[in-house]
């Protein structure tokens, strides 16, 4: 084969595939689990956004009489009613708003501070790195839920406080992950090459190091959303959830009805099932994302 032929063949081989993220998207699209997760999560998002249209009643609307052992599902009330005579389906539908909000907000809090700390530690290195990472080690040695309980006690009860508390507990995870990733990328050939053409430090970090380091953090953030929903439900269950009375938070519904488990199991089953389904959906997406943007799987 002549040199010219070799070159021509090389060109043919090259022209396949699109950008990096398009690549990841292609791989994600063919992941059945991720698609199932996305459809499921999409349903929850629709429920949350159009709650007033979908829910037959308001979350705190009294549609039946007070009852010590409220009746289970009927044709009129699919999920049954609770002891205060509220339609459980409506409460669960409205609850999806809270759960998604909680997931997004707490992860946003954890992600922003975690990435800031991780990037600082990883990029600057040296004493700054040691200081930040030791503090993070200390925080990580406290069990997450315990730490969240302590924070709620400190911040007071309320939806915002709970989201903050759960968010703060995820900071160390993101910080540590991003730092490790940056440490590896910082020493890579293309960063050296970028330095050799005179790219300034800020450009190195923002254009070369960070974009190549965030993939594992994105995956972790998705999975952390699921954990955040569980944590908030857990805090609510322990009586440390949002203090606002009548808030249809899934965990709070569970907690309110835990002693009616035998007489009216539907009160525990439906909100519990909602928690499981939403967390499952997010986890499926997270796993799919991991498989599609993991740099090790990249061609």
């Amino acid at each position: 084969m002549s040199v010219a032929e070799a070159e021509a063949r090389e060109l043919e081989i090259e022209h396949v595939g699109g950008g990096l993220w398009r690549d990841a998207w292609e791989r994600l699209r063919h992941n059945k689990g991720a698609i199932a997760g996305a459809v499921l999560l999409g349903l929850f998002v629709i429920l949350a956004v159009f709650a007033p249209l979908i829910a037959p009643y308001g979350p705190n609307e009294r549609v039946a009489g007070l009852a010590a052992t409220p009746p289970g599902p009927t044709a009129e009330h699919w999920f049954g009613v609770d002891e205060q005579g509220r339609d459980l389906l409506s409460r669960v539908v409205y609850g999806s708003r809270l759960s998604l909000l909680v997931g997004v907000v707490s992860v946003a809090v954890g992600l922003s501070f975690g990435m800031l700390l991780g990037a600082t530690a990883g990029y600057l290195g040296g004493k700054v790195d040691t200081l930040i990472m030791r503090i993070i080690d200390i925080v990580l040695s406290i069990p997450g839920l315990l730490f969240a309980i302590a924070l709620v006690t400190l911040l007071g009860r309320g939806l915002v406080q709970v989201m903050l508390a759960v968010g703060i507990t995820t900071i160390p995870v993101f910080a540590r992950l991003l730092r490790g990733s940056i440490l590896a990328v910082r020493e890579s050939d293309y960063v050296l090459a970028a330095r050799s053409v005179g790219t300034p430090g800020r450009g190195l970090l923002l254009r070369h190091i960070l974009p190549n380091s965030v993939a594992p953090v994105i995956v972790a953030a998705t999975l952390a959303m699921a954990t955040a929903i569980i944590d908030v439900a857990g805090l609510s269950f322990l009586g440390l959830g949002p203090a606002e009375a009548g808030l249809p938070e899934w965990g709070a519904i569970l907690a309110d009805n835990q002693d009616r488990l035998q007489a009216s199991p539907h009160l525990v089953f439906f909100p519990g099932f909602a928690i499981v389904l939403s967390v499952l959906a997010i986890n499926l997406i997270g796993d799919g994302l991991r498989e599609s943007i993991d740099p090790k799987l990249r061609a």
Partner: protein
Amino acid sequence: MTSPGSAAATDRTALLSVRDLEVRFVTRRATIHAVNGISFDLDPGATLGIVGESGCGKSVSSLAMLGILPQPAGRVTAGQVLLDGRDLVGLSEHDLRQVRGGEIAMIFQDPMTSLNPVLTIGRQITEALRAHLDMDKRAAAEEAVALLDRVGIPDSRRRLSDYPHQFSGGMRQRVMIAMAISCRPKVLIADEPTTALDVTIQAQILDLLRTLVDSEGMALILITHDLGVVAGVCERTHVMYAGRFVETGPTTELFARPKHPYTLGLLKSVPRLDERHHRRLEPIGGAPRDMRELPTGCAFAPRCTYATQASWEVLPLLEPTAGGDHRVACHNPVPDAELVAAGLGLGPDADGDAEDDDQWRP
């Protein structure tokens, strides 16, 4: 022409003049003596090959020149790197950034890992342009197209928006070269530019480098362990061992009459195309030096068949040989009789005809 050797070699200012450069890697456990006082001058348009085996300090020297040694361990402990008379050692990071890419640029060994996978190659080429030449986005993009054309990437305008993984190894190396020459540097350092490529692509890339050096008047420092590459491209060759130059001279002269046993060993370990009988390749015995401590005598002595007591005790300095500009740092240079026995020396290339270098080319 360049002039090798001691710090007192020249008074006139060369384009790039490295004086007794010394690089150490200091860690808690040990100090690595990576480069132990190398000196050379480079004139505009000159081509210099630096040859040596892995770990002899070739790449570290070039990183040191650009001030991008791995931190925090790497540091220049002595010497100067004079670019147009200005010492780059100790220059502020801000000033060095202007030099990098602007005046000295570098091509790296592995094109598969030296391009940022998440940025289009257009972004990566224009980055240097915009940093150094203060171009706006559109002008930089136009210039990038011209650069890609010059390094032989077809359909350049469309390929600006492609990502590195859409290019093959050879094409990526062309992109790296385009990036390196984007701001018309005065010195181009190519660190093993063809090592990661297969042989046909190697030849293309070397051709490209040769053409660019000729047309742009850039000075080229070619760092390699491949003698064939040096023979094809460089006017001068410096052989490096354990952080020092052990033999320097015009490439033809050095290949025809290697004086240092190490150079001879390197030449004997390379297959030649022009031989009638297949000769057994002779490896150099032993292993490269442990760079954690400096030897008192010649660093090559433990592996050298010519070593004498003096080799172990006295550090040999670069001294001129009969060949004028050809210098060697050896107490017991290889006698001419040995060269004949090795099939070197008084061959047809003794007249220094550059064409004969082809026998070493890949």
